[in-house]
């Protein structure tokens, strides 16, 4: 059984069919990229899978759970992590707190222990801080732990958002354009991070515009065009596929 299975997903906006019956399966441990020209429905598909948009048809199955119609926080707690295309951090919280937010809801959310700060909660907090510091070091933000996230540079915020998504150790990570609008050095950094995740056995589904990144790191590429699946296969085959070339460059 695939880790994530999307069956016949449909999403319409005022008569425009943004996602038109897409099937998609991601196996455990895979690194799959979703590509397609602007407006082909990649991000809409992401948002339907993670509960941010209600879909108009089809089903989403994740680890055997039916996610169709589930609220975003429920999807996240089942182990499906995501990042956003627009850099998204909690601006007034420190970099460290940004990461801590991502783990606490997965560790029991009874109100009273948190209000009274019981020893159990304090222990979890100490472990979370340790893990968060490790992740900040990993993305090179170790010395910015106490800085308000809003004061970080664009690239730093992007790395912070990436580290935050890793915090709860999600089963499947959906990355929405991690390499968009960052400088080449940081693109390489991001590529290395994603590759490292893949090596550790993480399952990653990537939406990306940067073809170098996609072709370089993906195992399998799925091409969307006008809301439909146009092609699917290993990067080399996709690169030569005439339908894909046509969709991207025109005839």
């Amino acid at each position, binding site marked *: 059984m695939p880790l994530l299975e999307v069956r016949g997903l449909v999403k319409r906006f005022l008569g425009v069919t943004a996602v038109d019956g897409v099937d998609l399966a991601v196996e455990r441990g895979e690194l799959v990229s979703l590509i397609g020209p602007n407006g082909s429905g990649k991000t809409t598909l992401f948002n339907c899978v993670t509960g941010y948009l209600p879909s108009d048809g089809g089903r989403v199955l994740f680890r055997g759970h039916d996610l169709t119609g589930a609220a975003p*926080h429920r999807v996240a707690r089942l182990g499906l992590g995501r990042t956003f295309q627009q850099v998204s951090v*909690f*601006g007034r*919280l420190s970099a460290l707190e940004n990461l801590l*937010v991502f783990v606490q809801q997965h560790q029991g959310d009874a109100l009273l222990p*948190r209000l009274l*700060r019981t020893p159990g909660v304090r222990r979890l907090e100490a472990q979370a801080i340790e893990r968060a510091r490790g992740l900040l070091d990993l993305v090179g933000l170790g010395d910015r732990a106490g800085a308000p996230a809003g004061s970080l540079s664009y690239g730093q915020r992007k790395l912070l958002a990436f580290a935050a998504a890793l915090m709860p150790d999600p089963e499947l990570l959906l990355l929405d354009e991690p390499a968009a609008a960052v400088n080449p050095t940081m693109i390489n950094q991001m590529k290395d991070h994603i590759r490292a995740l893949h090596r550790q056995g993480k399952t990653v589904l990537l939406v990306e515009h940067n073809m170098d990144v996609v072709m370089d790191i993906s195992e399998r590429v799925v091409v969307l065009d006008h809301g439909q699946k146009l092609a699917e296969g290993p990067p080399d085959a996709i690169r030569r596929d005439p339908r894909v070339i046509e969709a991207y460059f025109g005839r």
Partner: protein
Amino acid sequence: MIARRLAVRTLAGLAVAAPWIVAAVAPGQQRYIVHVLIFTALFAALALSYDLVVGHVGSLSLAHPAFFGVGAYTAAILATRAQWPFLADLAAAILLAALVAAVVGVPLFRLVEHAFAVGTLGFALVAWIVATNWVEVTRGPLCITGIPKPAIGLPGGATLSFSALPAYYWLALTALGLVVALYRGMTTFRLGRALHAVRDNEPLAAAAGIDPLRYRMLAFVVGGAIAGGVGALYAHYLAVFCPEEMTIGLSVNLLVIVFLGGVGSLRGVLLGAVLFTALPEVLRLAPTWRLVIYGALLLVIVVRSPEGLAGLIRAPRPARQSA
């Protein structure tokens, strides 16, 4: 850190000793000044409960007068018509206000931003109209009168009475202390982080597994419950409660205290409560110019320190790194 703790303890000590200090410094004015102090403590507690909603989950609610009124009427009616003991009617006031907040919160939070503010304003207006016109229960404009001063029965048959002004002040101060403790517990550590995550970026909070509605409701219900409790203390103190006490004017006062004191900041809200409860009283010395001076001061604060007074006393923040 140690200096700060010392400052906090000194201020707390001064607050506790205030009636004695007043008696020593201005014996002729004691009743009046302690009365202002009681109002300040009650308004500080009310403003903190309001800040839980507007400051920490960022929902601009104008419903607070309604919860205040529900608490005040519950306590007043139970104490006068059913002769309930003080602690029982206080508990009933808190629970009923929380219940009302929970019931209206569900539909109100389907609205966002400005629509939410207007929805809560509408609810506060309805509550005020009900209080004015449901004469059988609230006596409407005739007000509920003869609300007894609180007394707590102690084991062994003794009673602790709060009929003297300083005693009532200490009761109000104790209530404020409890509210401060609850406010701090809710706005720091994991709980506070969840509230702030919802305030700063709701979609991202959801991606972190946080249910935004749950935390908005938590702040709204706890805030409403505290407002109900303060309403009960207020009614018991004044012995009279009228519908005019729960008009939109109360929301305006709370907005001034919270936003000019420092939204989302314990220090700021306390400072705002002290300043904006005491200031209008001090300004009575110049009756003609009172409102002009008050308005001018509000303007100066808004212009000089958009973050509120807390922004002025806070250590300067490190300069923002350019994006």
